[in-house]
């Protein structure tokens, strides 16, 4: 489903990603962890070309991404209907209701008829446990509810891959569980997902594989039982030690 080959990105003199190579099979859930500034979010954003890169290539959901693609490239428009993205800060559209946030992209991008898009949006709201908040505007929803609407909004395009950029970092602890439950449900439903997270529990219980990224490279890659419980590198040991202490 996803194949990353020798991906390189620089910010001026500083290398952000150095020769990242990785594969993700259909139905896998990858937890991407690592110290801040290590390149986790940059890698994730490269996967749907929100971030440009300098060398290497990516194949994702049947589209091939290379450096220097134009913003208007039709391959990118196709890519973004197949790859959903969930942001740390939700980025809901404040002028639209929860329902319209979800129904907008199918109607505008895929030209789904309004009644069909709205019916699908209601079903998605029910799926994330917010059937009764269809008419609410984003500012009337809690952070956890907003993030669940944002997940439903990404799912409305029926993507093959979902990318999550620290989906629970901006939430109070008691709201994280609702969002985690939604992500777990997606994993059990066979969605291919990459989740940048500091959430120990998510990496351990939900992920099929864990990547540890440090200094722009994947330094560990394996099932949670191996990477979380028996880390090989000092950075992973330090990371999971701290996460373990931080989690009750």
């Amino acid at each position, binding site marked *: 489903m996803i194949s990353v080959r020798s991906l390189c990105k620089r910010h001026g003199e500083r290398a952000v990603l150095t020769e990242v190579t990785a594969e993700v099979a259909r139905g896998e859930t990858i937890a991407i962890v690592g110290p801040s500034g290590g390149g986790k979010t940059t890698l994730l954003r490269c996967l749907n070309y929100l971030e440009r890169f300098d060398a290497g290539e990516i194949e994702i959901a049947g589209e091939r991404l290379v450096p220097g693609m134009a913003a208007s490239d039709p391959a990118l428009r196709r890519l973004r209907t197949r790859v959903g993205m969930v942001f740390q800060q939700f980025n809901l559209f404040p002028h639209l209701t929860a329902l319209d946030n979800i129904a907008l992209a199918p109607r505008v991008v895929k030209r789904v008829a309004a009644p069909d898009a709205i019916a699908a949006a209601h079903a998605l709201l029910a799926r994330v446990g917010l059937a009764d908040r269809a008419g609410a505007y984003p500012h009337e929803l809690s952070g956890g509810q907003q993030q669940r609407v944002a997940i439903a*909004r990404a799912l409305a395009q029926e993507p093959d891959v979902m990318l999550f950029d620290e989906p629970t970092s901006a939430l109070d602890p008691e709201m994280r569980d609702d969002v985690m439950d939604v992500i777990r449900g997606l994993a059990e439903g066979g969605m291919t997902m990459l989740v940048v997270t500091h959430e120990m529990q998510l990496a351990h219980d939900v992920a099929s594989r864990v990547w540890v990224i440090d200094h722009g490279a994947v330094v560990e890659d394996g099932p949670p039982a191996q990477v979380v419980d028996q880390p090989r590198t000092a950075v992973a040991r330090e990371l999971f030690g701290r996460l373990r202490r931080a989690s009750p």
Partner: protein
Amino acid sequence: MLIALIASVSIVGCRGDAPQGDSLAAIRQRGEITWGGDVQGGEPYVFEDPEHPDQVIGFEVDIMNAVARRLGVRARMVQYAWSNLVPSLERGDFDVIANGLEATTERRQRILLSDPYFVYAETLTVRRDSDVRSVFDLAGKRVGTLNQSYAYDILRMLYGDAKVYEGNEEPYQDLALGRIDAVLLDNIIADRYGCIAARPTLKCLPYDVARGTYVIGIRKADRALKQAIDGALAAMRADGELERILRKANLWDARQLEAPPSEGHAIRGRALDGDMVLQFLAAAWVTLELSVLAFLIAVPLGVALAIARVYGGAPVRAAARIYIELFRGTPVLLQLFVLYYGVASLISLGPIEAAVIGLGLNYAAYEAEVYRGALLAIPRGQSEAARALGLGPAQTLRHILIPQALRLALPPMTNDFVSLLKDSSLVSVIAVIELTKRMTIAAVDMRGWLVPGALCAAMYLALSFPLSELARRLERRLARDQRPLAL
């Protein structure tokens, strides 16, 4: 509160520090008589000397110099807007008026008038192919004249209304362009601006529609000054100096030797009545129509300019920037003149069309900057989320950015619209009668600013307040998440 303000202004305006007693002694003591005039009246009255632009010349300058010499003092002209000469005289801003002031019964009731120094004739100018033969053929025609002139009174007496202009050139230009059918003005103006070689399509009809006289205006209390000036004028007539001055300015004709015409006409003073309220309502409708139509141009054009400036490539950005600087950096009055008179030979716009387009193009520049600020205030995450969902640039603008930008721009837009309502009064320069123009006309008819001013203010408020209220409600509905936190 507002009424009180207007009242106090008008008291200052009317009473001021008008000198008590006779001014003649003061003039002799000063050694100088000051007289009010307006160089905008142009050649041959009072105008700036093309050779020495810091000096004024004209036949009225010569007449006043001669009068002053005979009074044993110097004369000095002071520049005032022509339509404010009488109130300014009453305020004591200068000693006398000598600038094409027509002797009318109405004026005689307000100030003292000297004996005439010139006899003029109202002359009708039409296009050569016109079937108009006299002033009585003008029913249903569009006739232009100058505001507050005797000709305007004649036209209103005969036909109720006319199209009023502020300058000598514009009525004849509009006549040549076919925007109006006739112009009625003094022979002095008609001979110099109307039936001239440069306007081969125009002709002046040979019959005098009416005759009138130019006189010197003097404050009501200054009887001794009037006597002295009348004496000086009589002496100038007797020893031929007046004729020499008028011949020099090419103004001498047989009319000057005939007995001066009696003051045949009196302007009917008007009181506030139903007709006047209706005229004000019609003018308020023009103001509203102009403002709404102009805003309907300004908003979409402003959005397009803002998008060009924020998201366009370098040449598009530069073009939008030049447009904004050009329209924001030059007076809207100038833009209206250029649009209505300057390019009239290329595209001849009606006055309302020119006004709407001119104000619309001008306000678009201001709106563009408001929307640009609003677009820049939208968090980056909004565009990213839209892009990540597969929306293209145009879809992102239409569904995500513009709705949010308009919401942010609503308070400044309301501001701009209220400001446009008032700026629309500028279009009276291109012969549109809107609310402010109606007020100035009514103020002349009623000989006072208080009632028309209050009526005019009330109508502007009646237009702007519901709009502000509508905007406030819209804002509350749109900006649900932007309620301010109590401090």
